[in-house]
């Protein structure tokens, strides 16, 4: 207890009276508090039957078991992703057709008003289209994933994940509660960085914050899902291909988790040296989740919040992209020049200039990387209706020469590249140290570049393509 604490003078008095040394006096105070509490509890509280507790232990025997603990975690993750992928398919295409139907009506309206071509281009092809893409690609997976994840949270499963994974975090020199902040990262990395406050040791809190970006957030895994479906699942609804797409996304998420451990280990041996601090974690009783409340909470608080933020960012980003695509200097658009400038570097990473540019322009929010890329591709070439993933496949594979390697490198870079603007801003606000904010930018970016270049050259070297 600090010297200035109002109770510290009381504590000193108690030491004087009892004649005990300071530590002993504190101990005896705590002890007497607990003995009194115990006495009161015994007289007044009736313990419920042990049936519920036995059920909890039986569940823990599965979820925390040596044999089933990790498989159950993986199965739950895969199941959530699978339901998300299957469930998002239909609403995504409905939303896309609906929004593009509306686009046609708006275009007709502008034609009727005899508006200038740039008005149509700027507002419809720029702003409207990018917003439409964010909604149709991002909303369905979010609206399914968030409630499912909140169900697990509500049921009391997440602390069990922390319990199962603590051994790895301890080996990495980090805190077991980092598992919880990592799980928060699936929702939003910026929110997860705030949640790192649950870790008391400043060193371990910083490790958790710096490595959080390796968990693909809600702005990124719809991109992963779209890519996996594009290159593995196709647009078919065959069970086997969907399962393969699910396993691919799960694999990339697992890679992110492994990288979290590797980078935590690296940090705690180099920049953030130190011993793991003590770890105390409560495993709360299981509860049957309140489904209605979970859906309302996750849709209102999370899905709509994240979507609104994405739209707020997507509209100006779409406008800027359109301007860049339609401002010509010496016959080349600014967008194409920028992409051409990035291309030599990007091609080492198995990407192309447009993809890297989309990631850079997507700094404000990861949700808009794919829409920007689509717009950059579309505005350069022939106009087309993009109503389904099949059309997307046509655009990427046929018109821009993507291979499965491009897909893999795109997904790799989606999992590891700089955190979005909001996350960096939040980190700066939490740590108030530009050096660590810069490290949070550098660490995943270097990892991503290294991974992409290695995979690209390994595949080429082994003539797998």
């Amino acid at each position, binding site marked *: 207890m600090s010297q200035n604490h109002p109770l510290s003078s009381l504590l000193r008095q108690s030491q004087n009276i009892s004649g005990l040394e300071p530590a002993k006096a504190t101990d005896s105070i705590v002890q007497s508090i607990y003995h009194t509490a115990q006495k009161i509890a015994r007289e007044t509280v009736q313990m419920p039957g042990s049936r519920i507790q036995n059920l909890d232990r039986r569940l*823990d025997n599965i979820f925390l*078991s040596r044999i089933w603990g990790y498989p159950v975690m993986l199965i739950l993750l895969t199941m959530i992703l699978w339901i998300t992928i299957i469930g998002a398919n239909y609403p995504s295409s409905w939303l896309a057709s609906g929004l593009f139907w509306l686009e046609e009506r708006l275009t007709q309206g502008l034609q009727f008003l005899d508006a200038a071509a740039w008005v149509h281009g700027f507002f419809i092809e720029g702003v409207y289209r990018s917003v439409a893409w964010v909604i149709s690609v991002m909303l369905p997976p979010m609206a399914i994933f968030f409630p499912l994840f909140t169900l697990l949270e509500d049921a009391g499963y997440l602390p069990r994940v922390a319990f199962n994974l603590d*051994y790895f975090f301890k080996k990495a020199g980090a805190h077991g509660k980092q598992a919880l902040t990592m799980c928060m990262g699936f929702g939003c990395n910026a929110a997860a960085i705030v949640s790192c406050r649950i870790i008391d040791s400043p060193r371990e809190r910083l490790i958790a914050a710096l490595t959080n970006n390796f968990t693909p957030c809600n702005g990124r895994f719809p991109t992963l899902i779209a890519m996996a479906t594009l290159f593995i699942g196709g647009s078919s609804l065959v069970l086997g291909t969907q399962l393969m797409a699910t396993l691919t996304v799960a694999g990339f998420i697992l890679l992110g988790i492994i990288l979290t451990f590797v980078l935590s280990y690296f940090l705690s041996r180099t920049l953030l040296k130190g011993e*793991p601090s*003590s770890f105390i974690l409560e*495993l709360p009783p299981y509860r049957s989740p309140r489904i209605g409340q979970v859906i309302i909470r996750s849709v209102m608080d999370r899905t709509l919040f994240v979507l609104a933020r994405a739209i707020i960012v997507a509209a100006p980003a779409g406008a800027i992209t359109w301007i860049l695509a339609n401002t010509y200097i010496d016959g080349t658009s600014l967008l194409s020049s920028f992409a051409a400038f990035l291309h030599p570097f990007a091609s080492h990473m198995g990407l192309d200039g447009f993809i890297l540019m989309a990631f850079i322009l997507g700094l404000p929010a990861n949700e808009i990387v794919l829409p920007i890329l689509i717009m950059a591709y579309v505005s350069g070439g022939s106009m087309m209706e993009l109503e389904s993933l099949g059309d997307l496949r046509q655009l990427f594979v046929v018109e821009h020469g993507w291979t499965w390697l491009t897909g893999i490198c795109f997904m790799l870079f989606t999992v590891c590249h700089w955190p979005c603007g909001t996350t960096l801003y939040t980190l700066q606000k939490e740590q108030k140290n530009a050096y660590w904010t810069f490290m949070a930018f550098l660490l995943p970016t270097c990892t991503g570049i290294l991974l992409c270049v290695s995979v690209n050259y390994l595949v080429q070297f082994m003539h797998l393509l």
Partner: protein
Amino acid sequence: MHACMTLDRLLPGCFALVEEVQAQGITRRRLLDLGLVPGTIIQAIHRSPLGDPTAYQIRGAIIALRQEDTLQIRIIPFEGT
């Protein structure tokens, strides 16, 4: 009554009385805050899949502790509930 030992050696399912918390500083404070004062009944519940941490029942709550911390808690095991 068995001889005194440290909490990390208590097997899952077994009960013990806390004799002394030897940890110092912030860890000691945390452990005391959980109610791990001398005389408290504690039961080991689960080991995590890789053997560490372990979950204990302390005053009706399930609390997970790492081995480094449980090494510093001396206990007296006893039979039954």
